[in-house]
Structures are given as C-alpha cells and as structure tokens.
C-alpha cells in the first residue's frame, strides 16, 4: 500500500516537473519567436526604405527637357492669359476620350489666344502594359518630341494610336515610327531608344502626386481643378465655362 502510494507520488512529482519544464519551454519559445517576428518586420521596413531611397537617387539624375515649363514638368502650347494644366497618361482611355471630346475646343481656344495649355505627361498606368512601362516610355518620347518642337503633333498621334490597357503597349520602334510620321528625326529616335527622358517622366509623375492629384486626366484651369459631377470627366461645356469664368 504505502509502497504503491510512494510510487504514485513520485509519478505525480515527475509529471508536475515535466509540466513546469514544458511551460518554461513554451515561455522561452514565445519570447524568442516574438523577438524574431519584430526583427523580421523591422528589417522588411528598412528594405522598403532602402529601395525607396535608391529609386529617389535614380530620379534625381533625370535630365529635364530644355523646353519644359512649370518646374520642368510640362510643355506649353499657346499664349493666352488663362492657364490650363492637363495631366494625362498616354495609356489612359479616359484621357483619350477627353482629347476626342474636348480637344477641338481646346485647339480653338489656343488659336484664339485665350488659353495657354500646359500638357503634363504622367505615367501612372505602367502596370497596364505587361511590364513594358508604356506610360513611362510614351511620356519620355513625348518629352523628346517637345525638345524637337513637335509636342502637340506627337501628343495627337500617340492618342490616335493608343494601345489597349493590358496589352504590351507600343514598342519603341513604333514610337519612333509615329514620330517620323509627324516629321521627327534622328535625334528624337536616339532619345526614345536611349530612354533619355524616361526618368524625367517618373519625376514629373511624382510632382503630379505631390500636388495632390492622383487620377488622369486631371484638368486644372488657373489653379482650380475642373471636374464633372462626382469627380467625373467634365464635358466640353463645363470646361469652356471654367475657362470663361477664369478669363473674367
């Protein structure tokens, strides 16, 4: 009897000791894995920071097109008193729609010397061209066209030949061919092939974002953004009214 009791006691003690050991082990594991988790997240954050800093130093070496206005982010057309800023991505279908719809009215306002239009090519839709970064390449090509004095012509052919979202976009050869069709030559071709203004496009897009804009097209008349109801695309009527109001 007493022997059996002692045996039971011993097993009980052993079990308690083992339980305590297991609990101790759990606690140690919890502490060290928690430290590990925090460390991994800190490192991941630092990697993100590092990648950002690296990209920033890349875009600070961007060569700004000589003819660009507005902190080197835009190309001006016309010489009227009202300033119209149009931020567009050559991949953006609604920008194309806006050009088709309101482009003729804008051209008329330019001819009548009522507005100065500052076109800001931006590249926010790079994700929509299967990794070929069509938005950046086309914006860079537009800058090259501007340097050679053919911005508005090239702007027009880019929209006329707009690739579909989700396609590869137009390749550089096609971008150069379109340039030739509006009278651009070898220096343009070299700039497109050499991606001379691609990092400028990235930088111009950052300026666009830092001004608090995030969608394209963004249309600004004398510093005031013009939209239709609920942030939709403004009609030509809404746009021209904004210009008339700004002209005073």
């Amino acid at each position, binding site marked *: 009897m007493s022997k059996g009791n002692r045996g039971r006691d011993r097993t009980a003690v052993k079990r308690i000791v083992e339980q305590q050991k*297991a609990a101790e082990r*759990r606690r140690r594991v919890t502490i060290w894995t*928690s430290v590990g988790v925090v460390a*991994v997240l800190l490192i991941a954050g630092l990697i993100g920071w590092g990648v950002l800093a690296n*990209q920033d130093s890349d875009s600070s070496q961007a060569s700004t097109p000589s003819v660009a206005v507005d902190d080197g982010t835009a190309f001006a057309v016309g010489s009227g008193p009202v300033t119209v800023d149009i931020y567009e991505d050559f991949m953006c279908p609604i920008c194309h729609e806006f050009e088709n719809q309101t482009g003729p009215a804008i051209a008329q306002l330019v001819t009548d010397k009522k507005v100065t239009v500052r076109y800001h090519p931006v590249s926010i839709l790079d994700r929509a061209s299967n990794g070929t970064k069509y938005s950046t390449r086309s914006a860079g090509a537009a800058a090259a066209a501007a340097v050679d004095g053919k911005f508005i012509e090239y702007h027009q052919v880019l929209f006329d030949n707009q690739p579909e979202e989700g396609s590869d976009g137009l390749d550089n050869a096609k971008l150069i061919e379109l340039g030739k069709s509006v009278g651009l030559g070898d220096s343009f071709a070299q700039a497109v092939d050499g991606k001379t203004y691609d990092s400028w496009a*990235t930088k111009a897009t950052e300026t666009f*974002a830092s001004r608090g804009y995030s*969608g394209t097209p963004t249309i600004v008349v004398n510093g005031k953004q013009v939209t239709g109801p609920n*942030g939709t695309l403004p009609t030509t009527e809404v746009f021209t009214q904004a210009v008339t109001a700004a002209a005073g």
Partner: protein
Amino acid sequence: MDLKQQPRLAAAWPWISTLARLGLAAVFLIAGGLKVTDLAASARAVNAYDLMSYDTAKVIGAVQPFLEIALGLLLLIGIATRLSAAIAAVVLVIFIAGIISAWSRGLQIDCGCFSKGGELTGGRTAQYGLDILRDVGFLALAGILLWKPRTRFSLDGLLMGDR
C-alpha cells in the same frame, strides 16, 4: 470546460485556426505582392487618402508592401502566431479606419487594398462598403488566431514540441 462538453470542437480548433492562419497569410502576401513591383504607384495610393504629406505617403507607400509580405511569410510559417495575428489585426484596423475616413470625406478613390489604388475617374464608383466588409472578414480571421493561436504545420508547434 469546452473540452468535456464538446471534445469534437476542441479537436477541430487547431484545424480551424490553421485555415485562418494560411488564409490571412495569403491575404497579406497577395496584397503586398501586388504593390511591391511599383512603389511609386503604392505611394500615390497612400497619397490619394489625403491624410498626410506626399513625402510621408511616399515612405509609407514604400514600406507597407514589404511589411505586408513579411507579415504574410511570418503567418505562413506560423511563428509567434498570436503576436503576428495581433499585428495583422492592428494593421487591418488602420486600413479600415483609412477607408472610413475617405468615405466620410466623400473622396472618390480606389482603396488600394489589392491594387495600386488611386483616384477613380470616369464612371467607376468607390465601393467602400464592400472594402470595409472584406477587411472586417480578414479581421475575423486574425481574431480566431488571437483567441486560439495553436495551429497545425506551424513553426510554433514544432518549437514547442506539440505533436
């Protein structure tokens, strides 16, 4: 105790938690993976909430996808599951607060949850209600893990000597 009353449910919990853990891991891996390839776009998505300066948004936009991927990997291997789930829950609450804030200010933006986000243009309308509902669903997964952090196929289980 639950154990006595519902032994079947008690046995099922580690499996339920395992599903929650892997589901939440997938959510963060996909969300981070979609953003990490274009950090400038991620910065614009954060900036579209109009809650901070662009320079701050840029840093958040760059750091966030890496954090999401790291958190997804931590959940995938199941290390310090309860802490990982708690961090996931905090992150989700911040996301939900951001969406509610954008909604209440009448901003028309894509939440940028599983994309690079940004402002919506031309005909697309924001679906804040659905976005919030989905994030609350993810929060529930994190809740399950906070409550019952023991899961199968986890590093925690291996280190603690569970079967």
